[in-house]
């Protein structure tokens, strides 16, 4: 094919006698990425006041369920997206690391708010100055706390990235 489609083209069955789709063509990575980006299961690692904003953004008025990212799983083994919402202290850092290590691949991490991003104004003996000192972070959400629009934008940017990623779980046998 000369041109690479950026979205999944769906070809209706011409003579099937009904309106449903008989088949579709795509690239494997695009198909899996398209499926994965709409089934983000967040693990809310909620430690501080940003939790209020997290509740606001995940409930009705802003509704991250529109993006397939609203159903929180409270087991790291069932979740894809680790949302670190709030300040992480040095005492809590081993817990965060353990939660991250127990998540199955593929997994993504969102640093929600100023404290998770950089420590915020807690530059002292107690707080970790940014969770990226402990675990890799995919997307940072600034703000103290972030606006719901910021969080939704972050989710959409993460989804765009997932859609464009390679998904190496697929081999040539699939």
């Amino acid at each position, binding site marked *: 094919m000369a041109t690479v489609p950026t979205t999944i083209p769906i070809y209706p069955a011409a003579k099937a006698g009904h309106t449903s789709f008989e088949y579709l063509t795509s690239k494997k990575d695009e198909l899996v990425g398209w499926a994965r980006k709409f089934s983000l299961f967040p693990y809310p690692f909620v430690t501080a006041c940003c939790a209020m904003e997290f509740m606001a953004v995940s409930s009705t008025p802003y509704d991250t369920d529109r993006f397939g990212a609203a159903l929180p799983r409270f087991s790291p083994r069932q979740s894809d997206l680790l949302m670190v919402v709030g300040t992480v202290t040095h005492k809590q850092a081993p817990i965060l690391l353990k939660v991250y290590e127990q998540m199955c691949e593929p997994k993504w991490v969102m640093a929600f708010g100023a404290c998770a991003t950089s420590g915020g104004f807690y530059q002292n003996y107690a707080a970790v100055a940014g969770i990226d000192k*402990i*675990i890799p972070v995919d997307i940072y959400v600034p703000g103290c706390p972030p606006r719901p629009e910021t969080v939704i934008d972050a989710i959409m940017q993460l989804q765009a990235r997932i859609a464009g990623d390679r998904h190496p779980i697929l081999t040539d046998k699939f």
Partner: protein
Amino acid sequence: MTHEATLPTPLPPTLEIPAAELLATARALKAQGRFDMLLDVTAVDWPGRSLRFDVVWHFYSTVTFARVRVKTRVAESDPAVDSLLPLYGSALFMERECHEMYGIDFRGHPDLRPILLYEGFVGHPLRKDYPIRLEQPLVPYRK
């Protein structure tokens, strides 16, 4: 037009006592003053002063609704006062916190383990000479 600044509640009276008289003072406050609640145990660091630390107790009476503050001074070489645990059960956690944050030693306290800090933390972070950016991470940082 100037406005007179008025506090919503007046500051509580403060008793400044030597450290040796603490237990007797607290007993008298509890028995005669009916101060039946210990609200807070904390300390103040005055670097450069000969008796470097103020240890501060706040008492409250649920009978008369009065408050009183008790202060004593201790030296850096021997920052020890008596524990008020025999008189007030709430001293158990508050003295632990004061111990880890300021290094005040509460004589007679059975269990001065860290309560907010973690095992292995060196130093007392609320002392003025604790370096402001010194971190003691439990997890090694990523490169």
